[in-house]
């Protein structure tokens, strides 16, 4: 079909716009500040946004099915606090159990999974609106985090616990400073890679897209829509718990406010990465681009000494831009349909005759 070609090329660009932005932002900051390209800073970009990245991954999963989970930022906080309590001595603010770090990591991931299961069941089986359920959980979990915390931050974790979030794989010494290859940075890249393979190359992942594209049509194709959505919420919960692990590990501390107010930035990054809250669109690699753009902007502006207030303004504008882009994308795709329909009425006669005889 000849007439579909230009459409596909433009669509490809529209779908991968994020990488143009990432490259553009990278070049712009490199030109604006000589410190941006320093080895130390490059190593830092991913490390600092590792937890954020895991939250974006969790939202990418829910977005593909046409859902979202506002409560993941609170799951992050609760999981971290929950782990901290079981890890450290009573003097340091914990319960004094001092459980084995690997067991604690396992328990916090299970906790995240259970929170996701609870959200998913309420949304699918009980039929409560996903906005209401996850807003309610946002408050419940954050409140619970404060409730179980000793009122202050808890710190001094065992090495095994902080390795994933704060560990270093390699350190390359250069004249310009040190390039640090962080465990967290590699972990986030791997997590997105696994997410990409899972959503693109497994039956379950494709079922997620089908559910997001049209739940009724997916149901008609024999897909268990409720099951897909519940599992996606569980995955989102586990990702959020991982985010808690990374954050607590990097800071070597857990505070009751960890993760608070992150969720809309997370949505912004996912949407600018090509995901759509209407479901069935975008991909995990694009969402990773969203994470990169967000943290490049953050570090770049920081290095340039822009005041935190204006960084907030720029974040807000980026978010607004992302939402606008999403709307324009949907409108563009709609227009393409209309244009094709119109084109059918006037041109394309020759094409058709050749094609169908």
């Amino acid at each position, binding site marked *: 079909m000849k007439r579909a070609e230009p*459409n596909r090329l433009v669509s490809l660009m529209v779908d991968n716009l994020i990488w143009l932005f990432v490259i553009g932002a990278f070049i712009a900051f490199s030109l604006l500040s000589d410190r941006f390209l320093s080895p130390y800073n490059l190593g830092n970009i991913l490390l600092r946004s590792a937890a954020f990245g895991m939250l974006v991954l969790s939202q990418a999963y829910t977005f593909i099915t046409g859902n979202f989970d506002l409560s993941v930022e609170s799951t992050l906080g609760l999981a971290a606090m929950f782990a901290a309590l079981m890890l450290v001595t009573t003097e340091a603010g914990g319960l004094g159990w001092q459980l084995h770090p690997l067991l604690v990591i396992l328990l916090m991931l299970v906790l995240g999974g259970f929170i996701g299961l609870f959200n998913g069941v309420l949304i699918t089986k009980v039929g409560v609106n996903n906005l209401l359920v996850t807003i309610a959980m946002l408050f419940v979990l954050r409140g619970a985090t404060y409730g179980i915390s000793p009122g202050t931050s808890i710190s001094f974790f065992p090495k095994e616990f902080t390795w994933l979030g704060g560990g270093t794989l390699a350190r390359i010494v250069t004249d310009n400073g040190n390039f640090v290859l962080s465990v967290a940075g590699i972990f986030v890249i791997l997590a997105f890679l696994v997410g990409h393979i899972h959503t693109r190359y*497994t*039956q379950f992942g*494709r079922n997620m897209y089908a559910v997001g*594209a049209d739940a009724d*049509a*997916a149901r008609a194709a024999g897909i268990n829509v409720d099951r897909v959505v519940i599992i996606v919420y569980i995955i989102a919960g586990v990702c959020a718990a991982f985010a808690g692990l990374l954050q607590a590990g990097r800071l070597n501390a857990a505070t009751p406010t960890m993760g608070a107010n992150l969720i809309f930035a997370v949505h912004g990054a996912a949407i600018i990465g090509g995901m759509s809250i209407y479901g*069935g669109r975008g991909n995990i690699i694009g969402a990773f681009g969203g994470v990169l753009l967000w943290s490049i902007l953050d570090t770049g502006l920081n290095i340039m000494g822009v005041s935190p207030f204006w960084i907030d303004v720029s974040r807000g504008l980026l978010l607004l831009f992302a939402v606008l882009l999403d709307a324009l994308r949907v409108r563009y795709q709609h227009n393409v349909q209309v244009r094709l329909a119109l084109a059918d009425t006037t041109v394309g006669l020759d094409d058709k005759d050749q094609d169908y005889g």
Partner: protein
Amino acid sequence: MAETRTSQHSDEILLDMRGISKSYPGVQALEDADFSVRRGEIHGLVGKNGAGKSTLMGVLMGIREADSGTIAIEGETLRHASPQTMLDAGISYVPQHINLLNTLTVAENILVGNLPKNRFGLVDWKAVNEDSQARLSRLGLKLDVRQLVEGLSVAERTMLAIAKALFNNARLIILDEPTAALTRVDIDLLFSFVRAQQQQGVAFIYISHHLEEVFEICDRVTVMRDGRIVGTRAIDEIDVPGLVHMMVGGGVKEYERDSTAGREVVFEASNLSRRGAYEDVNFALRQGEVVGISGLQGSGVDELAQGLFGLERLGVGEVYVGGDAYRPDSPKAAFEAGVAYLPQDRHRYGLIQLRSVRENVTYSVLDRLVGRLGVLLRKDEHELTEEYIDKLGIVTPGPEQRTLLLSGGNQQKVVFAKLAATQPTVLILHEPTQGVDVQAKVDIFNIINDLSTQGVATMIISSEVRELIGLCDRIFVMCGGRITREFSRAADDMKPEDILLAIEGGPLDADA
């Protein structure tokens, strides 16, 4: 079409429905209907809206349970008709608005839920594309399987939906108004595809309002009217007028009113055109006149109605209301110019269902009911509401009743009350009797009559031809975006058969 019919339908009965009856509270939707389809035939099913076609098909698909009757497929009577058993029996439905996964590729739509995997259990995209491409070419369908469904034309989507049904071993496919949104080129495309599948022994039930197409593609045709099967004919044994006669029946007019048309023209359009919707539309409505416009979906009549009320672009040309130039940019502008509109889908546009009768009646005229400091005059508001409840005979426990809880007919009266309260010069009614019972219909006709007696010029867009004949002074027929015929009470030529024929685009008058 001069093409020779090459269908290989045998006389072998594929589907046999006998004595199907179905009633809803107050309505006998199906009465003792017998319907059968032969293997490899294309069987037309025609009838006006509400004739029972969708109920009959609902029973066939297992989504509606018949009160009585039997369904047999290849001689085997089905004991229990659920959607799954009917699918298993090879019966598939392709709706007018096709349900596909729009944001995904054609290939994924074909293989959804069962994608080919490589030895690691991961989706093998190469195999997905090749496999689905091969399946499509076996059906003679040339589509690029890698493109997104949202980039396909409507005809291509319809063919894809048919193909999907065939991949699921469908033997009988119900096509519901498949050509409503198609151009002639696309119709040819679709028809040649359907015929090719027919050659392979697949049977189709073809539901359409476009009778010419029924004659073009069907082997036999069954006509329904008022929940009954009027008859089944081989296509070469009947012509369009004969079919129309079967559809309309010999019934009398449902309602009769006297003309109240004055002399002064209050609503006039000249050379109104909107690309892709309608062309060169001219009309002039006099004070108190009732004019009907009828046309099939796609004839431009719906777009015209919405354009005249500012819900869509009106296009080029001139419109005058009460002598003043009229350019509706929005419904608000239309209201202010004295044009009121009763939308086709009252649940979406006509009523705020969660709010009370009072609020619904007065929300368009609240600016007339404000006193000093912008505070609403509750007393005036109540009086106005009571006045219209009384005048239109709205059956409600009181003005504070939520409109959601009223019957369809009474909801429609509330919408009328809202429109009447604006004291319009022109009233545009879009399918005003859709979904209301017989008694409420008569009430609505009386309301229309009352308003026209008061001098309101009324334009009724409706597919209920016999209702139009009873109500209207004149009836316009739209076809292919143009007003192609005008019937009038004065000329005494408002015959249901002629009007239906004109709607369907049948032979035009020499002077038309």
